[in-house]
């Protein structure tokens, strides 16, 4: 059984991750690439000998089994709902949608159409975190306190959609959902309340009236505490790499820590010091996307149960949304 796949959105995440992952995939064939920018659609289509589209309806008229939605966040809901109504299974990049309400609409539509809606929370397929989670289970670490940071210096100008909270949700949502899902996944508990503080450090953030640095303290059931730090304003020089994760898991039976700042990296020292990266933008390893997509396609084929559901993605977004509410009001907000 071969799945016919159509891709919507041939921008950053497509070029950095999904294109190569899809090319490595067995049992699927990319038959169409759509982008509002014709050049991008053509370029994407060329990689797969697929058809290029700039019109969504024409793209959806084509006979496909699965649509991958890799567009900016604010368009997720509209495109996903349309695709589901056109009878396609949908794989959508994280965050599931711009708002919880939109996410709920997507989930309802998928249920009604009896189709799969799968959200690309790639952290759950990153070997580092998968193995860490496995050790937590095997050694019965019983995490009580987890700090997770995902920070970078967002390499886009002020007019780019990421900086517009009405299009990306801001850093609290865009990076935030990665961390809120991570914490919930690691604790295996549900969130209770959140307190958050946001800052606008860079000019790009101030000009857009959004935050670029955001701290959440999330209480989970069972007196567990998660601390999420996300930032687009970390002034890392290139030698530090561009994207940083830090994890500190403290449990009743031990502690696990991950921080590239403490760990020697493979570096190149010549006139200056460089840390070679596979990509200047990506926060995970290419094989994580491969594992994610292979799993999603197997779910669609009925061979595997989803490791992360659309409801999980929705809760991750809900925590981030409540955190934004807390940052505005200065009070603790129930989740």
């Amino acid at each position, binding site marked *: 059984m071969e799945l016919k796949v159509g891709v919507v959105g041939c921008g950053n995440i497509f070029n950095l991750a999904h294109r190569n992952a899809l090319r490595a995939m067995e049992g699927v064939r990319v038959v169409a690439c759509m982008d509002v920018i014709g050049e991008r659609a053509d370029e994407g289509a060329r990689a797969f000998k697929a058809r290029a589209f700039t019109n969504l309806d024409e793209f959806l008229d084509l006979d496909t089994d699965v649509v991958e939605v890799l567009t900016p966040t604010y368009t997720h809901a509209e495109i996903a709902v349309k695709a589901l109504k056109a009878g396609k299974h949908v794989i959508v990049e994280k965050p599931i949608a711009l708002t919880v309400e939109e996410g709920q609409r997507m989930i309802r539509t998928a249920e009604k159409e009896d189709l799969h809606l799968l959200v690309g929370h790639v952290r759950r397929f990153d070997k580092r975190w998968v193995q860490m989670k496995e050790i937590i289970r095997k050694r019965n670490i019983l995490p009580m306190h987890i700090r997770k940071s995902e920070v970078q210096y967002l390499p886009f100008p002020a007019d780019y959609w990421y900086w517009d909270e009405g299009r990306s949700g801001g850093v609290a949502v865009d990076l935030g959902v990665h961390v809120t899902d991570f914490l919930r996944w690691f604790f295996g508990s549900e969130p209770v309340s959140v307190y958050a503080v946001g800052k606008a450090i860079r000019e790009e953030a101030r000009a857009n009236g959004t935050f670029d640095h955001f701290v959440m303290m999330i209480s989970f059931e069972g007196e567990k505490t998660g601390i999420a730090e996300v930032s687009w304003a970390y*002034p890392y020089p290139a030698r530090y790499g561009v994207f940083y994760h830090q994890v500190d898991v403290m449990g*009743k039976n031990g502690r696990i820590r991950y921080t590239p700042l403490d760990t020697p990296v493979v570096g190149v020292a010549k006139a200056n010091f460089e840390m070679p990266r596979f990509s200047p933008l990506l926060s995970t390893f290419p094989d994580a996307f491969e594992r994610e997509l292979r799993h999603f396609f197997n779910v669609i084929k009925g061979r595997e149960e989803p490791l992360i559901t659309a409801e999980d993605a929705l809760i991750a977004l809900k925590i981030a949304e409540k955190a934004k509410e807390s940052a505005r009001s200065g009070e*603790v907000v129930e989740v």
Partner: protein
Amino acid sequence: MRKLNFGIISYAHPHALRFASQIAGGKNTKLVAVSGDGSNTDVARAEARKYGARFYESYEELLRDENVEAVYIAIETYRHREVAVRAAEEGKHILLEKPIALNLKDADEVIKSAKKAGVKLMLPFNPRFTDPLRKAKEMLDTGEIGVLEYVNAISENVKPPIFLQGLDMSWFLDERKSGGGGFMDTAPHGVDSLLWLTGDVPKKVYADIGAKIYGFPVDDIGTAVLEFRKGVLAVLTAGWGNPKGYSYGVEMKYYLVGSEGFLDVRTAYPDFTVYQERAEKVYWDRPDVRGIVESFARAVLRDEEVPISGELAKKNLAIVLAAYESSRKGKPVKLDL
């Protein structure tokens, strides 16, 4: 400069071991007397013998020794007020272990009595006497990383009782004596660093502190989100979260995010332990402890200001207590410092 004659009151707090070694070997300090009040009187007696200092059973006797000009007080926290006030009354300059007292009222009393007696009062917060943090402060002050925006501070110690042989540290697990557990023990260091680095005070704190790891009757880990008046945001994690196998004993770390740069600062100078038939911790001449003792002695001998005053230590305590309050109530707490 002549040498300042020191007395040590109590070995209840294990820091007495490292301060004794520093005071006895100091350039301008001399250890002349030790008193055995509080826990670990036997250790105090042995230390007095080791350093050739006079030993007194009670601190009252030590305070009446005219040869003693200054005291380092390492008695259980709940007795800080009582002992510090008496020391001031006897005209002794005071280096008082942190936290300054159990509550703000007691802190006030300590501060007032030192002022009234005209003696110096200083609190020993180590990190600002470490070279890495001093360098970081210098870089901040010269604008090297632009405007300081965010600090992630970690002040973590190992699981108590710290593996010191023959020391009774059970009072750390009794809130009435210590004022709190791991957070009370280690957060004051991080708070002092934040006050010093920002030159500012927080206006709001939200914290989660609890007995989460070991099942002790007191808290073992806590995290506080601190919003400073002039805009710096800080997250401080403090407690006893380092398991035995952890490669650091005490871990003091700071990630400083400025508008134009980033500093990754680690300040702890680890002691080392010699393992043979028994384990022995070795207190080398650590620059931070030396810095504390020397700056205190200098302030006394030259009649200058101490670098960390009672008032600052009281603010520090107010912040830590506000963090506990926030954690109890599950709500942020406003501060007016």
